[in-house]
């Protein structure tokens, strides 16, 4: 299974509907300070079910393009992750926020958060174990966790 592309709609600095990708095996995102690179990471974390605090905002509605200057351009923001398996069959995981409420879709079918997370776990994404995201500025703290925290981390992934 691999990530083919991400569709973002009015998410943070990404206005309107934009496609980010296509992704290959080893991908590098470059750009000047403040251009919107970490916002791509936030878009992926959002689609994987992360809370507002890990997305550098206070409320989910602040994710909508323009909300940071008090002029949100829409009532909703949406991020869809397109996965392909070895036979190139596509599965689309999508999360949408309207106001502070989230809705989850798998291949355009509305599902509950529990179902959404279950399906993500089936392809190996365990959001609460944070086993595949390293946010900007946090890499050193991963090595410095206190021993008890590290035991919890191991408990989560086993």
């Amino acid at each position: 299974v691999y990530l083919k592309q991400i569709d973002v709609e009015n998410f943070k600095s990404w206005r309107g509907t934009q496609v980010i990708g296509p992704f290959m095996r080893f991908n590098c995102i470059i750009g000047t300070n403040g251009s919107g690179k970490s916002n791509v990471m936030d878009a992926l974390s959002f689609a994987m079910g992360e809370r507002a605090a890990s997305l550098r905002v206070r409320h989910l509605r602040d994710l909508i393009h323009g909300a940071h200057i008090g002029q949100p351009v829409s009532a909703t923001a949406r991020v869809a992750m397109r996965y392909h398996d070895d036979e190139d069959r596509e599965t689309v995981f999508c999360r949408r926020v309207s106001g502070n409420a989230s809705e989850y879709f798998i291949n355009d079918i509305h599902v509950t958060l529990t179902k959404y997370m279950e399906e993500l776990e089936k392809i190996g994404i365990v959001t609460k174990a944070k086993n595949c995201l390293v946010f900007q500025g946090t890499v050193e703290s991963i090595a410095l966790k206190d021993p008890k925290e590290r035991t919890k981390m191991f408990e989560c992934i086993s």
Partner: protein
Amino acid sequence: RIHLFSKCFEHVSVVIDQIYKRLCRNSSAQAILSADNPDEPYLSGINYNCVAPGKRFMSMENLSGGEKAIAALALLFAIHSFCPAPFFILDEVDAALDNSNIGKVARFIREESMENMQIIVISLKEEFFSKSDALLGVYSDFDVCMVSRILSLDLYLRTDRQLLIF
């Protein structure tokens, strides 16, 4: 549950040392995971120590910023090998690294992406983006407020890489 925990702990302790040696490109480097209570590791804390290249065994707090960043990457990739996610996203993990370590980490990540999983790296440094298959350039456009746009370059088979980027 207890059995799963021990299996995971054993697996990661073995793998982390191999990964750390590969990251440092140095076979005398060591990464050591140890449980305060080895019989029942799930009841006690788990310590993580590294012997950085050319150094002796010391506590993680004494290592420098760059040395800690490499130790952290080793732990991440070791955990991943036990519980593999389909992809990894790393946001400027190279910020504290000197040029020689950037080269080592970029080569390691390239090797991992060929063998084990898909990797997305956000970086400001040329060493990283010159080794990637796909380059995604984010730039700012201005309207009512700043708007991000993206340009994507497929570098996979290009031989004129140097020309393309600069």
